[in-house]
């Protein structure tokens, strides 16, 4: 692999050219105005609702060499591989144990161990989540035992490490710290769950706060304070549906944040960018859902700072400034 002097010269020239052209980030992608290797990508912006263009809840945070996934809804493996990120390089953090945030886990785990470009796991699958997470992962191991036993038989030099799971139940506080990345879990209020978390990821003087699913609560404000970017859930229905349907009324009041709730959060936190995800939008045959444009308009009535309506594969690079790229841009 030794470089010839000429080859080396070319590399230096190339590097200089790149420096002048666009600042390269360590993950091989360029952004328009920042040289940051701290990036958030929305992999799935839906809820249990299986929409073709919005996959189940899942948010990727890349910071240096760390690839941290927050929740693992339906389809997150497809989104990861659309980004050419091998599934086996992911560490998973779970906000809460509702199934829409976890039904993609078996796929990430078992498709991720394939010794193929999209898999490539070499260490036990790291999973951090609320009380019950380790038990969930233990049962998933049992559920897929027949598959694993069978592959053991047919994959030569099959290492138990490939399918091993390192799951940990977490409490509020710092739950992960490595390679200049710190992940802090904080309690939020969501439905009747005893344990529901949001997460804050700090990296080299910058931070992103991820709400998880939550109704308005002060702890979120406390932990999200100072974050460059806030990724926030939202839940809303048309007034006539809220009026007619007690179930919807109760669900929205105790599970989620309205656009107005979120707007108030943004106004207090004052992030460089606020981004919506996890759009809970109940509807009935005779009462349509609230549109994303309406959610933005209702937010705007209270909050005038930087705001994006998140969509699948939108990426947000966080450096001295914050830049947003939609899929395909």
């Amino acid at each position, binding site marked *: 692999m030794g470089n010839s002097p000429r080859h080396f010269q070319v590399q230096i020239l190339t590097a200089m050219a790149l420096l002048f052209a666009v600042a390269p980030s360590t993950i091989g992608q360029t952004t328009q105005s920042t040289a940051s290797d701290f990036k958030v990508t929305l992999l799935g912006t839906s809820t*249990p*609702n*299986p*929409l*073709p263009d919005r*996959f189940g809840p899942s948010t990727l945070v890349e910071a240096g060499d760390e690839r941290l996934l927050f929740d693992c809804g*339906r*389809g997150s*493996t*497809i989104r*990861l*591989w*659309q980004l050419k990120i091998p*599934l086996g390089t992911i560490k998973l953090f779970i906000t809460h*144990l*509702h*199934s*829409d945030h*976890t*039904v*993609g886990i*078996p*796929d990430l785990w*078992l*498709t991720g161990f*394939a010794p*193929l470009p*999209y898999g490539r796991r070499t260490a036990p699958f790291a999973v951090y989540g*609320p009380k*019950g997470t380790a*038990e*969930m*992962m233990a*049962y*998933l191991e*049992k*559920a*897929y*035992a*027949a*598959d694993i036993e*069978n592959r053991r*038989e*047919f*994959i*030569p030099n099959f290492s138990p490490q490939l399918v091993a799971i390192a799951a940990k139940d977490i409490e509020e506080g710092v739950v992960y710290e490595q390679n200049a990345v710190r992940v802090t879990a904080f309690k939020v209020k969501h*439905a*009747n*769950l005893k344990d529901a978390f949001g997460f804050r990821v700090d990296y080299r003087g910058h931070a992103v706060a991820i709400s998880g699913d939550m109704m308005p609560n002060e702890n979120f404000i406390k932990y999200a304070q100072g974050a460059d970017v806030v990724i926030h859930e939202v839940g809303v229905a048309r007034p006539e549906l809220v009026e007619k349907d007690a*179930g919807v009324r*109760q*669900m929205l009041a*105790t*599970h989620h944040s309205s656009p107005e709730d979120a707007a108030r959060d943004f106004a207090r936190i004052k992030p460089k960018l606020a981004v919506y995800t996890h759009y809970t939008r109940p509807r009935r045959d005779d009462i349509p859902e609230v549109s994303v444009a309406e959610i933005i308009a209702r937010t705007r009535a209270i909050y005038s700072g930087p705001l994006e309506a998140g969509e699948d594969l939108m990426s947000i690079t966080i450096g001295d400034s914050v830049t947003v790229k939609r899929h395909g841009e």
Partner: protein
Amino acid sequence: MNAHIGRDIGRMFIVLFLVILCGRGQLVGQTVSKTRIVLLGTGAPAPDPDHSGPATAIVVNDTAYLADLGPGVVRRASAAFKHGIAALEPTQLRVAFITHLHSDHTLGYPDLIFTPWTIGRRMPLEVYGPKGLKAMTEHLEEAYRVDIETRTNADGNQRERPEGHNVNAHEISSGLVYKDANVTVTAFPTKHAMESYGYRFVTPDRTIVLSGDTNPAQATVDACNGCDVLIHEAHPPAWIATRPPTFQRFAAKYHTTTAQLAELARQAKPRLLIIYHYPIAPEEILADMSTRYAGEFVVGRDLDIY
């Protein structure tokens, strides 16, 4: 020269026939009394946005019968529902058949159990498959226990439909496994790396045979035997040759090459062969198979309707 023209005309007829067939598939999609096949996943384990893991729906009247539960099964069913197949509304999914317990055929199982329930299914699922299915099902229910408990307790949002996450798992052997007013389903043994079955669906207007993962099997030929549609896996020899020797040995014992499938189809004589669960671009497998098989065949793509 004449032979060339004859062949060209023959090809034109085949194309014309396929166009008509395709058109018929679309038309059938608009009536309610005929059987439709909706391909929900035609891919291999790779997380490919265009080719989800193996999953197929046989739709008869207002009911969908699923075969295999690749990771995209609920997402693709939902997309098919939005394209007008009412039976594939996720909350309506309630019967599934699993060919074998390899993960690429079952990773969508938790999604099928829990998502339709969360958005409104009231009835338990009925799932049929090889030995081990019951244990798998019980362990999945345990894995998602926190979700179940918090959604069904006094203030849970699914408390009025607590049955909807339940599954009646049926461990099967070869022979008749299911019968209702729409369909009779028989299982036949296939040749894969573990206990595995293909399924034969007999509906009022069609007989459809699905291979699952398998080496060429006489049982598949016998199950089809002039059937309307044979849905079969295939791996091109040229692609297999690029794989590591271990996979080559595995494939030689447990998968079907396009060459083998052509030979099998000549014996089974389906009116239409649908190739699915293929590991390369559909154009490539179409080109490969076109040189081997003169009968009617298509390379299935996700959300195709036949």
